[in-house]
């Protein structure tokens, strides 16, 4: 189950961060997302280290914390998508699929003329779409 989804901008600033837990560990999730940015930087700056996902938008598993897993995705416009899940075994295809759908949702959100690029995403429709995508995560629905 996905506990947190985040969109992070150019300057590693959070553009959208939503947690899907009842527990009050929101801060912890913030921390996790923020720390995973280090891994993203690492992979982008010297990509030879990360063999399979070379120059792919999908960055794969960023790092396992004590009881979470963090996956990352980097668009060509240097916007980072990160989600944190508690599932122990996650299928790669699911993650890619998730990110694909998430990306389209994001693009629609920022293409809204009333959205100023570089600012936080406050669109409600986006939030709803994201929550549906999150809910449908795991059951391999085609994008």
């Amino acid at each position, binding site marked *: 189950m996905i506990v947190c989804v985040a969109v992070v901008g150019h300057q590693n600033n959070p553009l959208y961060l939503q947690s899907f837990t009842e527990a009050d560990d929101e*801060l912890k999730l913030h921390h996790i997302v923020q720390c995973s940015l*280090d891994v993203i930087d690492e992979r982008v700056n010297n990509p030879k280290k990360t063999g399979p996902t070379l120059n792919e938008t999908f960055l794969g598993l960023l790092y396992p914390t004590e009881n979470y897993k963090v996956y990352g995705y980097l668009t060509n416009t240097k916007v980072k998508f990160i989600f944190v899940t508690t599932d122990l075994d996650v299928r790669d295809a699911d993650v890619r699929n998730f990110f694909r759908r998430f990306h389209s949702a994001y693009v629609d959100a920022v293409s809204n003329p009333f959205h100023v690029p570089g600012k936080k995403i406050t669109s409600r429709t986006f939030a709803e779409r994201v929550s549906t995508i999150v809910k449908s995560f795991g059951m391999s629905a085609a994008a």
Partner: protein
Amino acid sequence: MEDYAEELRTPPVSLVSLVGCPELHATISSYLHSEQPPINTLALPDFSKISVMARTQKETLDSGHPGGILKRDWILKHRTRVPAVVAALFTSDHVSGDPAQWLQVCTDLENLKAVVRGRNIKLVVVVVHSTVKEHSCDAPASRKEVSLDTIEEKLVFNADEVSEDRMIALRKRAEVDSKYLVIFVQNDSSELKQSLNRQAIFFKLGSIFAELSNTYYRDEGRRIKTRIERKSFKSIELNIRYCFKARASTLFFSIKKCLIGCIMPSKLQTIVSFTDWKRNAEEISRVAVYAEFHRDWVEALRFYEDAYHVLREMIGTSTRLPAIQRLVEIKTVAEQLHFKVSTLLLHGGKVIEAITWFRQHNASYRKLMGAPEVVFLHWEWMSRQFLVFAELLDTSSTTILNTSTLILGTPERPLTEWELHSAYYYHLAAHYLREKRSCLELALSASETANEIDSNSESVIPSIYVGQSTRLLQQGDAFAMQHLTDAEYILFALAEGKRFQDSFEIIALFKKSFESYSDIKAQRMASYCGYRLAREYFSISDFRKAKQHFDGVASLYRHEGWVTLLWEVLGYLRECSRRIGSVKDFIEYSLEMAALPISSSAGVQSPNHKGEYGPAGPASLPQREIIHKEVFELIKGESVSASNEGASNLDITGDQPLHLEIDLVSPLRVVLLASVAFHDQVVKPGVPTLLTLSLLSQLPLPVEIDLLEIQFNQPECNFTITNAQKPPLVASSNGEEGLRVENAPVLALHMDKWLRLTYDVKSEQSGKLECISVIARMGSRFAICCRAESPASMDDLRLWKFEDRVETFPTKDPSLAFSGQKAIQVEDPDPQVDLILGATGPALVGESFLVPVRVVSKGHTIHSGELKINIVDAKGGGLVSPREIEPFSIDSHHVELLGILGPDGEDESQTGPENIRKIQQSFGLLSVPFVNIGESWSCKLEFKWHRPKPVMLYVSLGYSPHSNEATAQKAHVHKSLQIKGKTAVVIGHRFMLPFRRDPLLLSKIKPAPDSDQVASLALKETSILIISAKNCSEVPLQLLSMSIEVDEDENRRSCTVQHGGENPIDPALLVPGEEFKRVFSIIPEVNTPKLGVGTVCLRWRRNPGFEEKSCSGTIAAEVVTSHKLPDINVEMAPLIVSLKCLPHAILGVPFTCYIRIENQTQLLQEVKYSLADSQSFVLSGFHNDTIFVLPKSEHILGYKLVPLASGSQQLPRFTLTSVRYSAELQPALAAYTVFVFPSKPHFTVEDVGEKKTEPSATE
């Protein structure tokens, strides 16, 4: 890692035991220890001590009924108590002594063998010769050698007392191979031999021991391996069986336990001793042994790993111990196995394998929390795993340098970056330790009977099995071990847990991971660790350290705009500074928090989550408002509300008011942002210009500012704005009076709304006027000094720019918002002083030309004025002609500034020394004295023209209108004037031959190619020189004198120049264009083709007109214009023709004229002459003839002429041709004119001196 037993951490060393002959032990053991690999020795003085090696009672008991998986001390035992080899040392005299001794030896051997056989320890017998008698060795010695090489042979020969059969008997008894019977000579007489022997013996002993211990360990290994292979499957299936008949008898269980229990240690024993020994060897061994070593290594790993797996299988199965302790024991053993495995892997450089192995280890045990009461034990264990692995990674970090290249992990389970770095493990270790602490606190609070924990925990000791602990019961004088029940064990564990202070451990771990994350440039991970670290410090109320770490973290979050995290950290910081009691920090943090971009929607938190949040509480708008209120209460003077715990001794005391600085990078920019924009770029001094001051604050509640102070770089422009609502502050800075005070209707800042104030500013001082800062005073003791920013270059608020809000301009006018600057350029004041250059006409070359300069001050008084004079060529080009190189030649400048004359003629340099005065040829600097309003000051610039060149004269006056301020900027007046230079007089000259006397100048006849232009004069003949001076200026000139100076004195002899007539007494006035002539007669004395005649010196001056008289009483200085006359060519004329005849004749009256031909040469000159006819005369005589003129003599022709016409008539033309020179000489026409009167006139001669005679007819 340190808390592991030393024998576990370090590779074991094989052990050898020496029995008997204690005097030798030291030397031997030291030698063996220095052996590579080292061999430890267990020295037993005599055979009575050998029991230590024997299986002790306890062991035998345990082997029957094993209490645990793995004995705590088994490796230790193999290192200290159970040797691999026993060396029995017998003195030779015992061996070869009387039967009693021999019997003693035999019994000792027997006992020893008994002991040794139990553990199948290898045996070596050493026979020691105490005394050696020196005598020649002979042949039979060779028979005695017992399979020893030559040196021993000699020894054996020395040991001749021991008879061979005794030796053999000894060998038989000892049941050792002959080569394990060593004969040892204790002391040899000759040092060299001794050392030799010692070395030899030791070498032999060492090799024997090494070999034997090696074989021993290998045999042990093999033996137990076979046992495992025999039993392992059985143990498994036993386990399985055991699984479903869980109710079986304890006896049965004990057997299973025995099996498993004996599998474990034996495996371990083999592997440890074996592999570690090998690895030890590997360190010194060469590449040659690599393959073998490697093989063993892999094997060792394999053993460790399946030991580990068997153990893992045990978990579900065994119920030998109560559940909790069983789990603890298994975990402990697993820990040690894991430690060994990962050590081997890492030292082998197989980092990835090690890490994956650790992963599995972690994954397989993470879930085994065990009983809830002692779950903290699990967390402690976990954290220890991570810590140990981290330390292992660190120690072997040298081998994992190449990780950057390797492809991480498997595609399905990829390794992530941090798993390669110890930081990750430190971090998690700290994390689990925190878990442990919290669980422990929970458990402690749960267990109400805290006191009796202590009571029954003291008698608990660790048992002989790893990971077990038993109670020591004292029955009389005997001690008995008793297993604990789980309840007891829990109490014991709790008591143990209480003894440790975990916080410091946690802090150390976090710090370690913080540092190592920082080393690998993972700043966010590092800052997260720093955050946890700081929180630990906070929890143990070490607020300063906490604050310092929180600060570091906060900067990152600020920079990347993680508001929620920043809020959290700031909350801690705020609390810290409150506890420390530093008001400034407290207010700063509070203000920043209050101004964070947190909308109320962001933090919808149910209150029961309070624990999760720091002292700041949940990030929400109400919380911001609370903080806002609190801090402003504090500012107003009420101390902080007592609601929050901790010594809140915060208040701002009046004597030291609080002053916050907000600069361009300060995080407090969100609190107050001041943008200042002038409405235009340049302004004249004293002219007011508009300035818009815009203030923005993101504080959630409106802020009332009591007083605004706007400060400029020109302090006199500063002004203050008071709030109309508020009474003027008494405490506000009334220090400087006379400051402008504006009054604004309202000075309230609302969140995210610009407060725009427009005022006019007037600056008297030219230069840059820049608004530096805006100080907002709230209350009497609090002020925020905010650096002014210009809207053009203002970068947006760092945190708020990500917010979805409407950007507003600081100024209403968007163009001003784009281009507005906080600085403005104030121009120079325009001068109110006239600078008059009175120049009259063109300057004349040679004269010193005066340009009068008048400085008339109309509006300004002139202080410290200075006059700059500069002349440049009007046509561009420089004033220095390239021809003259030498700098001091007066002509090097065509025009030069000679000097500056003061108002009344005297030189300016005489006036005081404070005046600057600098004069170069084309530049002058002159200081102008103080001139009051309405007064004027004047001076004259004196120039001299050397060439007729037009010149641009620039004069600029710089002065300061205000007295005595050096800072006051200067006003400047510039004037320029073009002056053209003219040559005053042009001097010309002409040479004329004497009247009616024509020398034959050959150069005239046949002009030499070069001397064409040079005038030629006849030697010793008077000729006339006419000098003419023409005034070509526009002004009338006065000629004072004209003369010819003959410069070189030899020319004085060479030619004489007389002035015809004398100097004009009264200066001849030369109107423009008029020419003045003067006649000189010149007689060359020497015959030279180049004769310098001299230079004409013309002294003249301007004719003083009226205007100059009026402006200056002095008449213009006289000027000398000199003109060098060209050289003349003097030559001796061979023939001179002169005509003698009356100047006039009367019509019809005959008269005679003579033509004299003088021959000045030594030669006879033949000349032809001819006389042309003329219609106005009739003449008698030859018309033409050829005559000879004798040398140095003359020939005179005489003609009688009768004029036929009156008036000025031409005499018949006479032409002479010299045959010798073939040169024709024709006298000038002018010489051959006579005036013919129609009738004889009367002459009245008035004055003799009169040259020309005017005829006056008289009837």
